[in-house]
């Protein structure tokens, strides 16, 4: 009898745990949560996650439709902060996505034919130019989303990692093989 009670108790507790865990992850249309998730995303609007931009992805996460590991430009830092925010467990970037390499778009000005296609593709208005005139990328505004690459008919845009300068160099973490 005692054993039966114990088993019953365990089953009830397990069910409770499963239920609560589910509750933690289920649908929530809380706009505050969507905002909070959106703030953690890098706002490149690159669509690599499979959604139409950063906010739609944030909504999908909040609704429980999307996993937290689908943002390549955000990398590990974004996954960590999303995990903290939503309570999902930490996991590496989804297998079907490739990590983003740093860099900004640069137009080869000799090859550019001035077709405006990249300007229409840029989600943050970081490319300037006029019809049949050379276009150029505003380096400080480019988010590195690569959306301008496919539309270019002459393949004159490439992603370039700017050389290290006083603004964005930084100290590395001291390496220590013995302690790892």
């Amino acid at each position, binding site marked *: 009898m005692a054993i039966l009670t114990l088993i019953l108790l365990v089953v009830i507790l397990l069910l409770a745990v499963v239920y609560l865990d589910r509750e933690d992850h289920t649908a929530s249309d809380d706009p505050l949560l969507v905002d909070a998730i959106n703030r953690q995303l890098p706002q490149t609007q690159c669509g690599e996650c499979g959604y139409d931009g950063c906010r739609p992805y944030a909504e999908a996460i909040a609704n429980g439709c999307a996993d937290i590991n689908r943002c390549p430009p955000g990398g590990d830092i974004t996954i960590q902060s999303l995990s903290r925010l939503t309570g999902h467990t930490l996991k590496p970037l989804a297998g079907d996505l490739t990590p983003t390499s740093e860099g900004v778009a640069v137009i080869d000005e000799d090859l550019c034919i001035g077709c405006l296609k990249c300007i229409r593709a840029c989600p943050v208005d970081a490319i300037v130019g006029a019809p049949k005139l050379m276009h150029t990328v505003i380096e400080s505004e480019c988010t590195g989303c690569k959306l301008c690459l496919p539309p270019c008919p002459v393949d004159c845009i490439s992603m370039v990692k700017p*050389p290290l300068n006083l603004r964005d160099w930084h100290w590395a973490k001291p390496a220590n093989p013995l302690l790892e």
Partner: protein
Amino acid sequence: MTRTLHRFSGGLHLDTHKHESRDVPSMLVPLPGQIILPLKQHIGLAARPLVNPGERVLKGQIIAEPEGYVSVPVHATTSGVVRDIGDYHIPHPFGIREPCIVIDADGLDELFPIEAVTDYAALTPQALQEIIRDRGIAGLGGAGFPAHVKLKEGVDNAVDTLIINGVECEPYITCDDRLIREKAMYVVSGARMIRHAVNAKHCVIAVEEDMPEAHDALAGHITAHDDIELVRVPTRYPAGGEKQLIQVLTGKEVPSGGFSINIGIIVHNVATAAAVYRAVTRGEPLISRYVTVTGEVKTPRNLQVLLGTPVSDCLKLCGYEDSNDTRIIVGGPMMGTQVRDCNIPVTKTTNCIIVRRKIPPIQELPCIRCGRCADVCPVNLLPQQLYLYAKADRFDETRQHHLFDCIECGCCSCVCPSHIPLVQYYRYAKFEIALEEQRRQGATRAEQRFLNRKRRLQQRQEVKQKQKAGSTTTATESGDTDADRKAFVRAAVARTRSRKERGTDR
């Protein structure tokens, strides 16, 4: 002379290594063939070039003007032709390149006509500040903060005490000591001028106890009615740090996250005071400085170097022979940076060049929680706690433990029995936090631009739809109608036609 001195907690008595270079008179470095002047030798925004490649410039001519409030101009340090404006190596641990102006010296050293002030006391503090800015004076103690900004903030915040810092606490460095001994009058007069430029009530010149000659030299120039105090502070690293010196002299502590001006004090280096004297009485811009060259060189000594002179020239002059088992440090042994090669220019903040033997990398061992780092920390932080958090990438916790109050003096790393490069960990954490901040700001801006674009496209769509819906005479926002537009097109066609007719006539 009756000021009671206080003490800061922690600190270290280090082997000073000053005798090697302190008693040798300084030497002028001969004019180099090429001068490389970085546009950013100070804290703040880089200066904007005013000259073009191929242009001839004279010694002391402004070649780059300040951009914004926290910025100072750059002056040509000799006459010659501008060879290039581009990215060159600067003194930096990563060997990065930054925009510089390169001048091929013509050897004539021809002076740009300069203007001197005969009676500085007749000038308003603001006018004096302007002179100091226009002569390109940035703090020469090591950080390179624009001097005029400190002065302006000093006036705005009703500064009480001006401290002229001659406490050269880092080992090996003797450039301030040598400067005081050779140019004590400049320092004292400069101190009077800075005092006038900030309206300070009190003025203190501080030197270390182990600089008796410098003390005597200064004492010889301070007159009875000067009301300048000359103080000798005990030798203990880092007594020359701005916040530590304030604590020693006044017993006050600069609040966490604040500046010395918050407690009514501003601090300038002795070399800055000397530069102010030269700028005001002779109109000379900041184009040279004292640099200590010491360590594993034949004749360690101080040099008077034109800014932009290659570090390699200074080293050669002191008998340095390039070898594989030495490393070169710019700055002091505690806070300076090891540079990758010596083809970098001397800048406004280069106070010392040390050649040291290479040492095999020391293995970091686990922290044994001995607490020595906390004993020596001059700002009362908990270094081992900070270390553990930084190591675990828990940056929020490092912040809560006041990471940003760390002055990176290196006392903790110095005493650690496990050879943990503690300061390296703190720098890493500081940079990661700054990077995260930068990332966040970038994301906010990108989002704003994205939303603006979305709104604009939407508006355009709406306008189009409206035009389609309203058939002939729909008024648009700007007020013109379809009829107007048709008339405009008709007129244009007529113009073209008449032009063509005229063309055929000819």
